[in-house]
């Protein structure tokens, strides 16, 4: 059966995909015509073209996709005539092909208002890659640009122009931005945000003409005002591309659009229309998700499944110029039709509105500006008619997962029909089935099979929740094995390594694993080996994460940063001068870190040993900023200078840092010592923190900053230095031996049965009787400490690996580029 698809946009392409999947007997021969010279590309992300993406990046599939699926693809060749009677399509290049069924996916064109001057040089529309190229090249000569249209597409175009560093204005004839999605207050919040970014917003303005001699000079308005500008971009709406349909006598709507029925057939049953060119019950669906749904329906019609189009929810969530904007359901319901709950935060620019049914039981719709993290769960609550909790405002006070728990049981309460991924049209039931029936237990697998989460990706957190809920339901307890190569937890492997005296990754793999290892188990085993024996990690360089392999932190562009140890944050003027001198010599960007140290960025891999050599010469050593290891022991100045200081916190911090330097652990370890209860060193936010008291020191453990800040908990109070060090020895060693990979001490304690009370028993009361053993193990590690940088500097064999090219030693990576910023260099932004 011969199928011709007219249009190679997102929806036309999706149709091909859907038909291929459903075409089990391989009975369809598909031919695609595209008017543009490019393969189907992601129009939704079009503005990324300005931030450096190429046409190839935006492309939906690689260039072999069509051929390898046996689809004839004719690009740069528009169909100019459909001969309904002989069921033939004729293209501009003279191709004349017969069809059994024809699918119109011609999309839409920008709507250009009928005002004088729109054909002047410097007036553009915003729709295709070619439009963007024209805009980009014209923008070189322009300073100021105006966008006509403050709706969704208009603001996308605004972002694009802003990215081109133009003074950007946006003009909307309605009294607010995004009038279809936002209410007055929501639009006001969005406007404020845009203005903060330097975008000029003009509302209630109707353009009357574009003036200028040959090229654009100004945009004039009905109220006789005018706005001078070098270029004008029109993005005031879309008009369906229905000219082919019109010409061959298909029925079209009064304002355009090919009229279709529930099966998406046009007035000719052999011709379907999908996407933005179709008019269904008086409506053109100008979003990609309904277009995809239409594509699937036609594919199912053709393959004998009777699926019908029933309209589509036009809820949207997007990021406009970095601002979250979402609107769902009846977002603009009138006050007298519903009860509204409104939350406004003018400090952070967050606006949320929920429309609730008059009886307070159901959600009718809503608007989110500035923070749309609750969108998914709110949308589900609305779409599935879930009962609202008593305090409906809780729904948006909490964001994301927390909100999910409140909304009537969250994920678990959703019916199987609930649409989770609206881009690909995947329901909760489909995801559950993949887990239950096909035995797919991980996100990647579910994405591959269902395609859920492969569009905008906004539903991924929900997919994860559904997978784990379903696994729980199945009674599956997934053993947290390290990866496919080691069927053990980290703690088990640690014990095995110790008991069997394993010294290398290969031995571990031979004895306890299988396969060749991977990027997950190699660093885990490397960390275990380092914690168990404290041998030079570069003896097994290739199992280390890149930072450990090069003893420096890889940064944007592939260069490295260097952090020498500055114990306790104390440094002499002479050593400061050395850092300055080295940084200057190798042209490194310098910055004070959050941990009282100095970081030097932008070193080529071949420069690292040279830099270290000079630093070591001046008495520095590695700061282990690259390792899952003890980083720094921060200190306040303490009793040496401070009039409040109780003890000498700097000296104690140095003593602690020098004891545990280089100690490898499941994750990085941070510490601090404060000289009094004012806590200037912020010790309670560290993995272990020590605070001076009148009688000695208080020891806190399990704090961290980062994405989920947590305060440390008191482990022991009023202890002397010796006891403090004994407890820290035990605490760290116990953590190193029992924590899962990449688990900070806070999470480790949170997951521990019995929590801090249990830990206190083990460390302080020695309830397991392992105190002495832990101390001995720690002492062994301390005794074996060596500076890793020094080992490399002194070993020609190790130095050899600090080269970018193995066959051009010393030659730097020519692809590394820097830019200047405030008198120093920085890595160029990546694409």
């Amino acid at each position, binding site marked *: 059966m011969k199928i011709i698809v007219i249009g190679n946009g997102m929806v036309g392409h999706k149709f091909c995909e859907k038909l291929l999947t459903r075409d089990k007997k391989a009975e369809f021969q598909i031919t695609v015509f595209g008017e543009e010279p490019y393969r189907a590309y992601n129009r939704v992300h079009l503005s990324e073209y300005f931030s450096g993406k190429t046409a190839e990046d935006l492309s939906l599939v690689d260039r072999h996709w069509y051929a390898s699926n046996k689809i004839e693809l004719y690009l740069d060749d528009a169909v100019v005539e459909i001969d309904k009677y002989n069921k033939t399509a004729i293209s501009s290049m003279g191709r004349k092909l017969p069809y059994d069924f024809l699918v119109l996916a011609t999309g839409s064109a920008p709507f250009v208002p009928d005002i004088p001057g729109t054909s002047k040089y410097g007036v553009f529309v915003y729709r295709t890659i070619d439009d963007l190229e024209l805009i980009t090249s014209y923008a070189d000569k322009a300073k100021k640009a105006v966008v006509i249209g403050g709706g969704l597409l208009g603001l996308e175009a605004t972002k694009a122009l802003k990215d081109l560093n133009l003074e950007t204005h946006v003009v909307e004839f309605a009294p607010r931005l995004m009038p279809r999605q936002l209410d007055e207050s929501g639009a006001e919040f969005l406007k404020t945000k845009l203005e903060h970014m330097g975008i000029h917003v003009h509302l209630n303005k109707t353009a009357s003409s574009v003036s200028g001699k040959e090229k654009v000079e100004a945009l004039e308005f009905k109220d006789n005002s005018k706005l001078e500008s070098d270029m004008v971009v029109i993005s005031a709406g879309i008009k369906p591309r229905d000219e082919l349909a019109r010409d061959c006598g298909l029925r079209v709507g009064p304002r355009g659009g090919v009229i279709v029925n529930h099966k998406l057939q046009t007035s000719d049953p052999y011709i379907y229309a999908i996407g933005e060119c179709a008019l269904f019950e008086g409506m053109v669906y100008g979003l990609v998700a309904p277009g995809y749904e239409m594509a699937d329906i036609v594919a199912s019609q053709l393959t004998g499944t009777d699926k019908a189009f029933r309209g589509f929810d036009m809820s949207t969530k997007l990021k406009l110029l970095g601002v979250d904007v979402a609107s769902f359901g009846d977002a603009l319901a009138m006050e007298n039709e519903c009860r509204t709950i409104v939350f406004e935060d003018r400090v952070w620019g967050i606006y949320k509105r929920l429309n609730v049914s008059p009886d307070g039981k159901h959600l009718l719709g809503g608007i989110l500006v500035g923070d749309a993290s609750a969108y998914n769960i709110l949308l589900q609550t609305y779409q599935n008619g879930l009962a609202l909790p008593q305090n409906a405002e809780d729904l948006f006070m909490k964001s994301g997962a927390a909100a999910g728990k409140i909304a009537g049981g969250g994920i678990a309460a959703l019916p199987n029909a609930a649409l989770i991924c609206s881009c690909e049209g995947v329901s909760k039931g489909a995801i559950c089935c993949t887990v239950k029936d096909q035995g797919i237990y991980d996100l990647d697998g579910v994405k591959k099979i269902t395609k859920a989460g492969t569009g905008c990706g906004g539903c991924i957190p929900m997919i994860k929740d559904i997978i784990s809920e379903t696994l729980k339901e199945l009674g599956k307890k997934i053993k947290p094995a390290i990866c496919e190569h080691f069927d053990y937890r980290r703690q088990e492997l640690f014990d095995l390594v110790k008991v069997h005296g394993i010294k290398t990754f290969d031995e571990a793999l031979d004895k306890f694993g299988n396969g060749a290892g*991977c990027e997950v188990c190699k660093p885990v085993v490397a960390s275990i080996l380092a914690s168990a024996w404290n041998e030079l990690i570069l003896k097994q360089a290739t199992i280390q994460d890149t930072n450990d392999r090069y003893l420096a932190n890889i940064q944007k562009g592939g260069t490295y940063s260097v952090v020498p140890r500055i114990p306790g944050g104390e440094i002499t003027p002479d050593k400061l001068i050395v850092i300055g001198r080295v940084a200057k010599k190798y042209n490194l960007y310098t910055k004070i870190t959050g941990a009282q140290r100095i970081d030097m960025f932008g070193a080529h891999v071949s420069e690292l040993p040279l830099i270290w050599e000079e630093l070591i010469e001046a008495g520095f050593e590695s700061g282990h900023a690259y390792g899952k290891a003890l980083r720094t022991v921060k200190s306040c100045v303490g009793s040496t200078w401070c009039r409040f200081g109780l003890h000498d916190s700097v000296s104690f911090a140095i003593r602690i840092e020098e004891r545990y330097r280089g100690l490898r652990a499941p994750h990085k370890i941070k510490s601090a010592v404060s000289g009094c209860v004012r806590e200037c060193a912020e010790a309670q936010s560290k993995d272990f923190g020590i605070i001076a008291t009148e009688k000695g020191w208080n020891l806190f453990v399990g704090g961290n900053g980062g994405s989920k800040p947590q305060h440390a908990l008191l482990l022991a109070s009023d202890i002397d230095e010796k006891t403090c060090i004994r407890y820290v020895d035990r605490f760290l060693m116990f953590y190193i031996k029992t924590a899962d990979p990449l688990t900070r001490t806070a999470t480790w304690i949170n997951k521990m049965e019995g929590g801090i009370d249990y830990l206190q028993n083990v460390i302080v009361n020695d309830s397991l009787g392992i105190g002495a053993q832990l101390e001995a193990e720690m002492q062994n590690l301390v005794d074996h400490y060596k500076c890793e940088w020094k080992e490399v500097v002194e070993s020609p064999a190790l130095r050899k690996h600090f080269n970018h090219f193995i066959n051009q030693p010393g030659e730097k990576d020519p692809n590394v580029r820097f830019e200047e910023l405030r008198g120093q260099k920085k890595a160029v932004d990546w694409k």
Partner: protein
Amino acid sequence: MNYSTTQDVQDIQWYPACMITDVPENGGVCVKYKEEQIALFHFARRGEWYASQNLCPHRRQMAISRGMIGSQCGEPKVACPLHKKTFSLIDGRCLSDEEDCGIKTYPVKVVDEYVYIGIAGEENGSEAICA
């Protein structure tokens, strides 16, 4: 030891990249070939060699050669050190979630102490570089 991938060997020029001992066992190095950067890997446990482009397509960074190598269900792979995107060393396809960005792979052979990377005819401007 003589290993090469399954590509058509007819029109391939073999560029002698380095010595076996230059490449760390179960690790990789970066080889310069004209303006190209090629990542070369030695799977010592299996006695196999692979090569791919050094450019990670994800953020366009020259970093693949510094990545950790390993296997997924037996298939040799490499993980970019920057964001841990993994790629098959058999056909270069991305094994992480973004399936549409693959890398180019090259055949490799070892003769005596030398490791050769196979450059397909069309890319090879010079006849001089061959084994």
